[in-house]
């Protein structure tokens, strides 16, 4: 039971089961949970959390939520820090719900983020895992979207 003063918590964030391997690939996680330690071509993302936040943000830009069908646990929500991670997810939830009451319901905040991430993930993986070095593809994608033309020598 939740009271006016309490906040509904959620301890895990989920994604589509079919996306898990690609999430791990983007974060450079190999079999047995071993992280790739290559400095020559480091993975595009430092952690699964970072992939999730980017996917959710791209989904917000696209402007559509896609509910999960077969969900699989991706991360513990304790990995999300207050700033900027939860600040952005809170903002996404407020914008989606046109109201602030959602801030006392972390379960709903995370659900909203999961569904935006589900939308944004396809675009994210298509751009970053295209031919070439994933981290460079990510930088080029960002500069293209926000910073004018991508630098050709990338």
């Amino acid at each position: 039971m939740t009271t006016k003063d309490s906040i509904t918590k959620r301890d895990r964030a989920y994604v589509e089961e079919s996306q898990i391997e690609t999430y791990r690939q983007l974060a450079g996680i190999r079999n047995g949970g071993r992280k790739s330690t290559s400095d020559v071509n480091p993975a595009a993302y430092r952690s699964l959390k970072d992939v999730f936040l980017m996917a959710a943000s791209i989904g917000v830009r696209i402007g559509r939520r896609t509910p999960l069908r077969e969900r699989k646990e991706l991360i513990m929500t304790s990995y999300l820090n207050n700033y900027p991670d939860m600040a952005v997810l809170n903002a996404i939830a407020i914008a989606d719900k046109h109201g602030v009451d959602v801030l006392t319901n972390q379960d709903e905040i995370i659900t909203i983020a999961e569904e935006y991430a589900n939308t944004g993930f396809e675009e994210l993986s298509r751009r970053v895992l295209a031919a070439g070095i994933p981290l460079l593809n990510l930088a080029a994608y960002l500069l293209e979207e926000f910073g004018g033309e991508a630098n050709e020598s990338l």
Partner: protein
Amino acid sequence: MKIELMKLTNFRQFFGEQTVRFSKDATRNATVICGVNGAGKTSLMMALSWCLYGYEIENIGQLINKQALTETPEGFSIESKVQLVFTHAGERYTATRVMKADRISQEKWKRDVQSRLTLARVRSDGQFETINNPTGFIESILPYNVSQYFFFDGEKIDQFTKPGHEDEVKSAVRNVLKIEVLERARTHLASVAKEYQQELKKKATGQLQTLLEKQDKLRTELEAQRTNLEKLRNERSAAQRQLGDINEQLSRIEEIRQLEEQRKEVVATIKAKEEEKDRLWMTIRESTNKCFVLFAQPALEKALAVLDEKRARGEIPPGIREQFVQDLLTQERCICGRPVTAGSTEHDELVRLLGKSVSSALENSVIQTAGDLRSLLTGSDDILNQVKMLMKQKVDIENQIESLNQQLDEISRHLQGFDREEVVVLEKKRIEWHEQITLLAGSIGGSEERMNQLRKELEDLKVEISKAEIHEKSAKGLQRRLTLSSKATDALDRMCEVFATDMRQQIQKEVLAIFGKLIWKDSQFQNVRISNDYQLEVFDRWGLPARRELSAGERQVLSLAFITGMAKVTEEEAPLVMDTPFGRLSSRHRENITQHVPEITKQLVLLVTDEELHSRARENLEPRIGMEYELVFDQAIGCTTIKQLR
């Protein structure tokens, strides 16, 4: 293990009974035994090894004292014996090894087929208990293949650092850290898993059989890849050694010295730039990962607008706090002091106000979120500018590396057209070996990648196999055992890898610390490393490999640092016994060693000539000497007497 005393009876040049007592003191932990060349220092070392392990000496003439042999009448027998008293894990032991020989005639002897070892645990009251299997017991305290790193000939220890002796380093680390034990366990488990697999294939039918056959095929390929990878790594090590040799030959040619120096500098600069680029990758990733905020900007702006609207309407923060209204209702008193009774208009109004109020949790969240959003929106330009700047830096570094590589090509072209055939030939060979190493690196990468793919496929297949129907009850049991042994094999695999890496790094750290203390030119060397394939390398102040340039004495010091570093990391406790350790070393090195080595080991035994230990070296060691002996060789009888000096 701590040795207390060693008693020799007719052992090699030691006639009759002679005893050496070793210092057991914690501070004065060094025992010094001085003797000229041929006086018997090495024989004492051999006595220690022979007593414990029975190796080293085959020829009877080398073992039993010749004077004793001569004095033995026909029909009588003579014994050569070494007794060693030592402590281990709080218990005292006496090990006795004996070789007997019977004199049959003037020239003919009949000796024991092999020496006999007895081992007894001795109590303080003199009672003793004979240990069964003394050889196995001693092996468990200090294995023979590990003892070589504690009892060593100072003149031969530079083998670890001689070019072409990388296997010695690998062997030493694996023996001392018992990595082979883990690997044997892993191999055994893998073969057990394979046996279960074969049995299961016989029992299973249909889909499961197909899956098991596929699994078999993948495992076989994985093993083949593992073997191939090992082979490729060995080839790469050999190629790197060849390249090192050629670089050294080139650097010795006077006419091209300047060009070679220039090449070295350019190589060092490229390395530094590549390291800078590696660090830059990490920073680029940090920055790009933060850019999710940019995609979410429309949502941030909309959310902030909602929050500002709430604030403009006075809803948050609220004009009247929830707790204040709650308190009025509880006290049943208005803010002006008048009573407010339940059911009255005033009471209903207060309840209505309470319903409209915002909880404190929500209020706090809103205020915090509003502040965060303002901050995020202001800083969003900075995030992108940072990415742009870092990408530009990356391009700059790449251009610099490109330019430096062109310089290297130019130097190489110059050498290939040089007016001396030896230079041209060497340069061409250098290029070939360099290319070979590059190709091997590619093959190694490919093999590692294929192994990762195979491991992934096997993981997926495991899931399918476990889902497949298994009808026979025995197949289920076999499946469980197969799964268990496979998991155990994988776990041991990972454990071996992690353990070997961890231990190698620990040894490396200790070796670096000790080398820094022992070498007199410590400012000229910045690092010591043991690579993944167990190459022991020292790096000069410019960060370049310098092992090949070390003098014989410096190699000896490096080897000593390696051995003592390993001794620190290993769980084995044993005395450090060094035979003629200072022969090729300059006085500075001797001083450093005599100052620092007693600190590294609990018990030190030095077998030295008087020339080795004098002046400052002797002064440094003086406060640590607990016992001192001199080996006095009697020319008349050709035998040595051990004379105690203190």
